[in-house]
């Protein structure tokens, strides 16, 4: 024993220390080097335009520095109304997607993999189709002389065609259809990750199937649910195409206001200011969600 310890003590204390440190440094530098193209790209396509947007919002039409673009948003009540409408539509669409998407994701997660895959395609397929095409398809279905009204009238359920498109209802229907996959996909992924043994354990310990669902399955699906809800809601806030077409000018959302300001009035400063407001609100909502759910052990640790 002594012979062995003497021998190792005889070796210099920092054997190869410098070379090993240099190798570590070289590896770190190399990692930075291969990351840098993507970092630069992200910087260019995200931070530069956002910075420019912010910069533009500080100038009026004559190119003078001003806070007027922001003050006007506060002073004119119509902007506040538009903002409220945007939130109202976003909340309702999110709730509709939740009501449709949760049972759908649950069904998909419980089905055998093959069947679930086929049904999943029916959710994802619209996802691959142009939003514009889908929105016009809804117009065809819901307009005054559209499919729904024709059927209802030929069945004698209604005498007058119902106003289904070019109004609030149309916007909700069209947007819910577009947004559904954004809620279902993360939700499905998190439901799929819930081990069936948790549910078996719930039953085994005396909880009825209903109680097992609410006390075990539902809480464990919350990480996916919150991810889906946040994603859907935030995307709704800035949605343009579908509400513009389905609303027929009767439902005014924030993004349409921006489009109008820049295209119709060519007021880039005002439009930029509205863009900045939307961006800040969105980030604020994301932060609030993160605070709310992140501290409840759910978001990060729910599924270990």
């Amino acid at each position: 024993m002594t012979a062995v310890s003497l021998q190792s003590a005889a070796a210099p204390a920092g054997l190869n220390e410098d070379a090993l440190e240099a190798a570590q440094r070289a590896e770190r530098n190399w990692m930075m080097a291969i990351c840098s193209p993507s970092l630069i790209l992200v910087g260019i396509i995200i931070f530069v335009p956002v910075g420019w947007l912010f910069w533009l919002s500080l100038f009026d039409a004559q190119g003078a520095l001003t806070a007027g673009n922001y003050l006007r948003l506060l002073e004119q009540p119509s902007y506040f109304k538009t903002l409220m409408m945007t939130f109202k539509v976003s909340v309702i669409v999110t709730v509709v997607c939740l009501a449709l998407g949760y049972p759908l994701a649950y069904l998909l997660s419980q089905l055998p993999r093959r069947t679930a895959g086929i049904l999943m395609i029916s959710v994802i397929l619209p996802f691959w189709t142009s939003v514009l095409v889908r929105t016009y398809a809804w117009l065809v279905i819901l307009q005054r002389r559209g499919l729904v009204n024709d059927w209802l009238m030929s069945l004698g359920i209604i005498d007058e065609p119902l106003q289904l498109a070019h109004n609030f209802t149309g916007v909700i229907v069209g947007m819910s259809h577009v947004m559904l996959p954004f809620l279902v996909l993360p939700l499905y992924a998190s439901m799929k990750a819930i081990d069936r043994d948790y549910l078996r354990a719930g039953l085994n310990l005396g909880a009825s199937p209903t109680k097992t669902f609410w006390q075990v399955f539902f809480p464990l699906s919350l990480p996916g649910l919150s991810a889906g809800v946040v994603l859907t809601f935030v995307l709704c806030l800035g949605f343009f195409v579908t509400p513009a077409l389905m609303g027929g000018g009767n439902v005014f959302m924030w993004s349409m206001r921006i489009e109008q300001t820049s295209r119709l009035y060519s007021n880039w400063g005002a439009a930029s200011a509205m863009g900045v407001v939307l961006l800040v609100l969105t980030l604020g909502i994301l932060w609030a969600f993160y605070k709310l759910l992140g501290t409840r052990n759910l978001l990060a640790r729910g599924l270990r």
Partner: protein
Amino acid sequence: MKAVDRSPPVTIRGIAKRYGNTTVLHGFDLDVNPGEFVTLLGPSGSGKTTILMILAGFVRPNAGSIKVGEEEIVAMPPHKRNVGMVFQNYALFPHMDVFQNVAFPLRQRGVGAAEIASRVREALGLVQLGEYAERRVDQLSGGQRQRVALARAIVFEPRILLMDEPLSALDKKLRERMQIEIRHLHERLGMTTIYVTHDQREAITMSDRVAVMNAGRIAQLDTPKGLYARPRTRFVAEFIGESNFLPVELDGAAVKFGGQPLRMAETIGPSAPKQWLVIRPEKLSILNGHADPTLNQFQGRVREVVYQGESFICYVTLADGSEISVRNYSRGDALTRLPEAGQPIRLGLSPEDVVLVPEDSVA
């Protein structure tokens, strides 16, 4: 938690389960006595876990009866069975802390808050986790999760306790300690327990009786000692412990190996034509000089010697070409007299250790 005065017996009759054309269980029968610890032991696919799933109510059998005491439970939904279960991966609810996990079955039963607190504390004390009630599940080690799962399964004083390979995720040392701990807990609570494992040593260490399962049937149901000393089929002899098999010929009442009659402690009755002599490696002794004439003797040549710490194994080729292994313990001068490869060797087997099994019928 008080010991259960009289945990009921479990009577399983004719349980059959088919998946499409595959029959997983062919009319499974088992009687578990009150307070008994019975282990279902078998390779994967032998149907042992399916039986447990049927007992817990997660899988519906095609036929059969399960009685706990006098009550038929075969068609009862799982949440009404009042059967405790420890899952292979523990299935502790990750969104609840240790206390909430253990309190879960009591909450479902409408127990008052004060009683829940005292019973949870008692159950956690029983598994030596009294200090851990506030911990989150992901802050626990594997062994601690195992104990929480156990506490959760017994806190509501279920009629019977089921365990599905509960120790398979633990490392060897911890597994061996938990085996003893579960055994002690069982002795203390006296709960009728059905345990599933594929680890034969675990089954032998923990159980009152072991049912060795093969292809949806019980191959042998016996005490651990009985299984090891008197396996009844080649499958059981192969599955439990290490075994050598030598082909023997039946010549009237005599049993011969290599033309030489075997001395046996008991005579065998009429049986299957093809028989095997089962020899456990540690039952053979290496003979030097004059040997006890009552021993059965085998001549061979050492092929290889493997040193394993507490013991060493000699692989020996017998005169007729059969391979056989011999385990000797590294005790006294045994190590200095290690045989060498190529040397001739003589082995002795006591007549009490002669065990014959029939060739397995191809199912």
